[in-house]
C-alpha cells in the first residue's frame, strides 16, 4: 500500500517536473522578452535628440526601431562562401535532408505512441489492450536510437552551416539568437524533449496500471506538445527565409520577434509539416513492420507484424488524406504572399517538379489501395468485393492519368505541328487545375471506398435496415463521384479566378464521403455477423512490398517537396532580403534534383535499416529469455549457423 502510494506520489512528481520543463523555457523567455522590448526604447530615450533610425516592416508594414544589422551583402569568395572541393549547397542539402528525415520520424513516432497507448487504455478487450501497449512500446523503442541520431545530425547540420555559409548563418542567428532568446528556448525545449522522452520510456514498465497509466499517458501528451513546439520554432526559420517579416528592406531587425516568427507562411507550413511528419512516420513504421514480416520465420511473428504494419499504415494514411488539402492551403498562401513565387512553383521553373509530385501522390494512393485489396485476402468473405476491384482500378487509373497530365507537354516540333498548337484540344484540358482537382478527389474517394470495403470485408451487417444502408452507401458514393466530376467539368465554363472556389465543394464532397461513410459503416457493422476471423499473417508478400513502396515513395516525396519549397527562393538566401551570391545560386535541373533526392532517400533508408537492426539486437535477447522462462513452452531448437 505504502509502496503504491509512494509510486503514485513519485509519478505525480515526475509529471509536474515535465510540466515544469515545458513551462521553463517560457518562464525563462518572459523576462528576456520583456527586456528585449525595453532595451531599444531605453536606448532611444538615452539618445533622445539623436536620430532614431526607423524601418518599415517588409511584411507587416509596421514601423519599428532598427535594432539589428542589415543583411550582409555577400560576395563570392572564401570569406562568405568557404568551400571544399565540392558543391557546398549539395553538402548542406544532404545534411539538412537527413536531419529532417530523422527529425520528423522522431517527432511523429511519439504521436503514434500516444494514439496507440490511448487506444490501449480505452479498449475493453484486455488482450487487445496489451497488444496495443506493447506496440506503442515497440514504437518508442525504435525512435529512441533515431532520436540520438537526430541530435547528432542536427549538430552536423549547424556545423555545415557554420563552415559553408558563415555570413548567411550569422545573419540568421543574429536575428534569431542574439537579440531574442528564441535560440535559447529552442535549446531548452530540446533538453526538455530529451528529458521527457527518457522518463516516458523508462517509466513505461513502472507505470503500467490504473491511475499511473493515465499519468504516463499524459506524459506522452506533454512530450508531443514539446516536440510540436520545437518543430514550430524550426519552421519559423524556413518561414522567415521564404517570406521574411519583422525586418526592414535591408534586413535589419525591427525589434518584434513575433513578427519574425509569425511570417506569412508559418502557419500553413506548420500544419503541412505536422501532417507530413505523421504520414511519414506511419510509412517508416509500416516499412519496419513489413521488413520484420518478410524476415520472420514463425506464423506468430508474421501475425504480429502484419497487424503492426496495418495499424501503422492506417495511421499514416489517415494523415495522408488531409495532406493535399493542407498543401493547397500552403499554395494559396504562397500565391497571396507573392504571385511571382506561386507562378514559379506551379507554372514556371519548378512546374516539372510538380508533375513528379503528382506522380508521387498517385503512387502513394495507389499503393494504399493495393495494400487494402491485398489485405482482404486475409479474411474470409471478402471475395464478394474482390470481384469488383478491377473497376476500382479503372477509376483510380483514370483519376491518376488526369492528375499527372502536364499542362505543358514535352514534344518535338513535328508533334507540335501535328497537334496544331501548344495545347492539345483533349488532353490540354486535363492540364489545368480544375481537372486535376477532380482527379485527385476521385482518387481519394476511391481510397475511402476501398477502406469501407476492407472494414466490412469479413462481416455481414445484421441491423434491420442493412439493405437500405447498403443501397444508401452505394448511391452516396455514386453521387459523390458524379458531383466531383460535374464540378470539375463545370470549372471549365467559369473564369479562372472564380473557378478556384469550386475546389472547396469538391473537397467537401470527398470529406463527406470519408466521415459519413466511415460512421455509417461502423454503425452498420456493430454486432455484425463475422464470416470468419481476420487471419493475421495470412497476407501476400506483395502487400508488404506495397507498404515498402508507400514508405519509400513518401520519403522521396518529402525530399522532393522540401527541395521545391527551398528552391522557390531561387537566388535568395532570405527572399528579397539577402541574396545568394555563391556560385551555386542557380537552380538545379530536375534530373540532378531527382538524383540527389534518390541519394538522400537511399542513404536514409540504409541508415534507418541499420537503426532497426540495432534495435533488434537489444530486443532479441529479451523475448528469448522470457520465452525460455515460461514453463510449458515447447523448447525450441536453437537456430545456429
Amino acid at each position, binding site marked *: 500500500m505504502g509502496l503504491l502510494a509512494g509510486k503514485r506520489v513519485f509519478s505525480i512528481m515526475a509529471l509536474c517536473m515535465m510540466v515544469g520543463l515545458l513551462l521553463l523555457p517560457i518562464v525563462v523567455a518572459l523576462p528576456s522578452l520583456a527586456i528585449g522590448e525595453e532595451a531599444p526604447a531605453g536606448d532611444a530615450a538615452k539618445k533622445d535628440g539623436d536620430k532614431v533610425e526607423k524601418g518599415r516592416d517588409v511584411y507587416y508594414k509596421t514601423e519599428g526601431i532598427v535594432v539589428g544589422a542589415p543583411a550582409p551583402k555577400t560576395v563570392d569568395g572564401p570569406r562568405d562562401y568557404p568551400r571544399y572541393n565540392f558543391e557546398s549547397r549539395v553538402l548542406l542539402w544532404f545534411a539538412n535532408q537527413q536531419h529532417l528525415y530523422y527529425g520528423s520520424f522522431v517527432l511523429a513516432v511519439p504521436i503514434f505512441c500516444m494514439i496507440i497507448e490511448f487506444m490501449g487504455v480505452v479498449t475493453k478487450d484486455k488482450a487487445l489492450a496489451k497488444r496495443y501497449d506493447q506496440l506503442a512500446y515497440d514504437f518508442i523503442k525504435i525512435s529512441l536510437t533515431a532520436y540520438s541520431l537526430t541530435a547528432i545530425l542536427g549538430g552536423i547540420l549547424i556545423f555545415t552551416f557554420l563552415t559553408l555559409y558563415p555570413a548567411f548563418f550569422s545573419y540568421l542567428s543574429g536575428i534569431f539568437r542574439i537579440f531574442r532568446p528564441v535560440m535559447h528556448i529552442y535549446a531548452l525545449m530540446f533538453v526538455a524533449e530529451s528529458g521527457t522522452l527518457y522518463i516516458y520510456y523508462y517509466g513505461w514498465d513502472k507505470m503500467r496500471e490504473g491511475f499511473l497509466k493515465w499519468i504516463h499517458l499524459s506524459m506522452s501528451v506533454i512530450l508531443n506538445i514539446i516536440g510540436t513546439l520545437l518543430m514550430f520554432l524550426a519552421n519559423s526559420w524556413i518561414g522567415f527565409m521564404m517570406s521574411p517579416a519583422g525586418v526592414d528592406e*535591408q534586413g535589419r531587425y525591427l525589434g518584434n520577434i513575433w513578427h519574425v516568427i509569425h511570417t506569412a507562411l508559418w502557419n500553413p507550413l506548420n500544419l503541412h509539416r505536422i501532417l507530413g511528419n505523421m504520414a511519414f512516420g506511419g510509412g517508416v513504421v509500416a516499412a519496419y513492420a513489413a521488413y520484420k514480416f518478410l524476415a520472420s520465420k514463425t506464423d506468430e511473428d508474421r501475425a504480429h507484424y502484419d497487424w503492426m504494419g496495418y495499424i501503422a499504415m492506417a495511421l499514416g494514411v489517415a494523415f495522408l488524406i488531409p495532406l493535399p488539402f493542407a498543401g493547397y492551403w500552403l499554395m494559396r498562401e504562397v500565391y497571396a504572399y507573392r504571385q511571382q513565387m506561386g507562378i514559379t512553383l506551379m507554372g514556371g521553373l519548378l512546374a516539372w517538379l510538380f508533375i513528379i509530385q503528382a506522380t508521387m501522390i498517385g503512387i502513394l494512393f495507389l499503393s494504399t489501395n493495393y495494400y487494402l485489396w491485398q489485405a482482404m485476402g486475409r479474411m474470409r468473405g471478402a471475395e464478394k468485393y474482390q470481384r469488383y476491384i478491377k473497376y476500382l482500378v479503372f477509376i483510380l487509373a483514370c483519376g491518376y492519368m488526369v492528375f499527372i497530365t502536364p499542362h505543358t507537354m514535352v514534344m518535338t516540333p513535328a508533334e507540335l505541328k501535328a497537334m496544331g498548337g501548344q495545347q492539345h484540344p483533349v488532353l490540354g484540358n486535363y492540364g489545368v487545375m480544375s481537372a486535376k482537382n477532380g482527379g485527385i478527389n476521385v482518387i481519394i474517394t476511391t481510397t475511402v471506398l476501398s477502406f469501407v470495403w476492407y472494414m466490412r470485408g469479413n462481416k455481414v451487417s445484421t441491423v434491420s435496415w442493412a439493405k437500405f444502408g447498403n443501397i444508401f452507401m452505394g448511391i452516396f458514393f455514386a453521387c459523390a463521384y458524379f458531383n466531383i466530376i460535374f464540378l470539375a467539368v463545370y470549372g471549365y465554363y467559369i473564369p479562372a479566378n472564380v473557378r478556384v472556389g469550386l475546389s472547396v465543394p469538391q473537397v467537401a464532397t470527398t470529406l463527406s464521403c470519408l466521415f459519413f461513410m466511415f460512421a455509417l459503416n461502423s454503425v452498420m457493422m456493430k454486432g455484425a455477423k463475422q464470416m470468419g476471423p481476420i487471419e493475421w499473417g495470412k497476407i501476400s508478400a506483395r502487400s508488404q512490398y506495397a507498404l515498402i513502396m508507400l514508405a519509400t515513395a513518401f520519403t522521396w516525396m518529402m525530399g522532393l517537396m522540401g527541395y521545391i519549397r527551398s528552391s522557390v527562393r531561387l537566388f535568395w538566401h532570405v527572399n528579397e532580403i539577402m541574396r545568394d551570391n555563391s556560385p551555386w545560386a*542557380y537552380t538545379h535541373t530536375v534530373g540532378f534534383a531527382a538524383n540527389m533526392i534518390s541519394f538522400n532517400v537511399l542513404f536514409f*533508408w540504409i541508415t534507418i535499416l541499420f537503426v532497426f537492426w540495432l534495435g533488434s539486437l537489444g530486443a532479441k535477447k529479451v523475448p528469448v529469455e522470457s520465452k525460455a522462462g515460461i514453463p510449458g513452452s515447447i523448447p525450441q531448437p536453437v537456430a545456429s549457423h
Partner: protein
Amino acid sequence: MGWMALAILAGLLVYFQMSISEPAAKKRAVFKTFIGIVATLLLFMAIANYKNNFYGENRLLPVSLVIITVSTFVMALYFTNLSALLKIGGLMFFVAAFLSGYGNWLPQVEGGFPPVEEKKTWDSMTPQQLADEGEKIIFGGVGKNKEQGAIGKGQCPLCHAFHAGMLGERAPNLAGLPGRGKERLEDPKYSKGNPSKREYEAKEAFPGSGTAENAQEYIAESHACPSCYVVAGYGVKGTNDKQSPMPSIHKPPISLSLPELAAVDTWMYLREGIDAPSFEEIVKSYEKFIPEADRPKQADEKPAGATSLLADGSEPIDQIFAKGQCISCHTIPGIPGAVGTIGPKLEEGTTAPQRIKDPAYKGTAKSPTEYIMESIVDPSAYVVKPFPDNTMPKIFGQKLSAGALKKIVDYLSQVKTGAPPPKI
C-alpha cells in the same frame, strides 16, 4: 577499395575451397561466394557510374541504381537468410531508380544564374572603371561629359561646369580642380590647421574633424562641408560668401555613398591625366570629414531609381523641388530648405502676371501658368533683372516629367507675395 572487397571475397572463395570438406556444402559455399563476387562487381560498377555522372543531369545515373537493384535481387535469390532485407533494399533502389529516371526523362531546365546585381564591387575596380562609374554619377553615362544637359545621380552639372571656358555662374568651374586644391589650402582664409579661425558659417565638417591636409582632402571636405570654405564670389547672396549654396553631397536628397564619391573624384583626376590616389586613400579622406553615422548606406539600386528623370511626378511637391535642386538657387515660400538667392524668389502668383505685361517680355506665354512653364523649360525667354542670363540650366524640360512640371506650375502659381504659402 573495390579491389579490397573483391580480394576478400576471392580469399573467402579459396578459404571455403580449403576448409569445407563436405562436397555439397563446399559447392554451395563456393557458389555463394561466386555470386557475391558478381554482385560486388556490379555494385562497384554502379558506384563508379554514379560517381562519374554525379553532376549534370545524366540519364545514365539511374542506371546504376537499376544495376544495384538487379544485384540485390540476385543476391536475395541465393542468400536466403538475408533475402528479406535484400529484396526490400532492392525494391527501394528500384523505386528510387524509377523516380530518378523519371526526373531525368523529363525535360531539363536549369534555373540559370540570377541577373547580375547592380551592386558594384568598388574596391576591386581599376582606376579607369572607377572613373567610368564616376562619370556615370556625374553625367549619367560614360562619355556624356561633353553633352549639353547630361546629368547623373550626383546632379553636379546643375551648378558646376566641368570644361575650361564654360560658364560657371553658380559654382566654380571644376576644370583643373586637382591642381587648384593645393592653392586653396594655402589661402589664408582657409586657415589650414586652425579651423576655429575660419569666418565661414561652418568651421569644421563635424567637431574635431580638423582641416584638409592635402588636395584630395580638400576636395573631400568641400563635398562634405561646402560651407567650410567658400570660394570668393560663389557664396549665397547676401551672406558675404560665408555660406555656400551647395548641399552636403552625402546627405539626402543626393546621398552619394563614399565609394561613389571616390569614383567621382577618380574621374576628376583621370580626365586631367593625373594619377588618382588609390580608392582606399580617397575613401579615407572622406571618412575624415563624414562621421560614421552620416555615411549613407550603400543603397540598393532600385529599378525605379534607374530613370534618368530627376523627378517623375509621383513625389510630393517639396521633394520635386529638392530633387530638381531648385532649392539651392531659389527661395520658394513654403518649401523647407528653399532659401537660395542665386535666382529670383519664386512668388509667381504675383510676379508672373506682372512679367507677362513687362514690355521687355519676348516670350510666348499668355497666362501665368504658361509663363511659369516657359520659364522652367526655356529660362532665357525672359530673364528677371538683376539676375544674369544662362544661369539656370535649360534641361528641366527633359529632366522633369510632365507630371512633375505640372505640380511645380500648380504650386508656384499659388504662391503670392505677402500671402501665406499654399499647403504642400
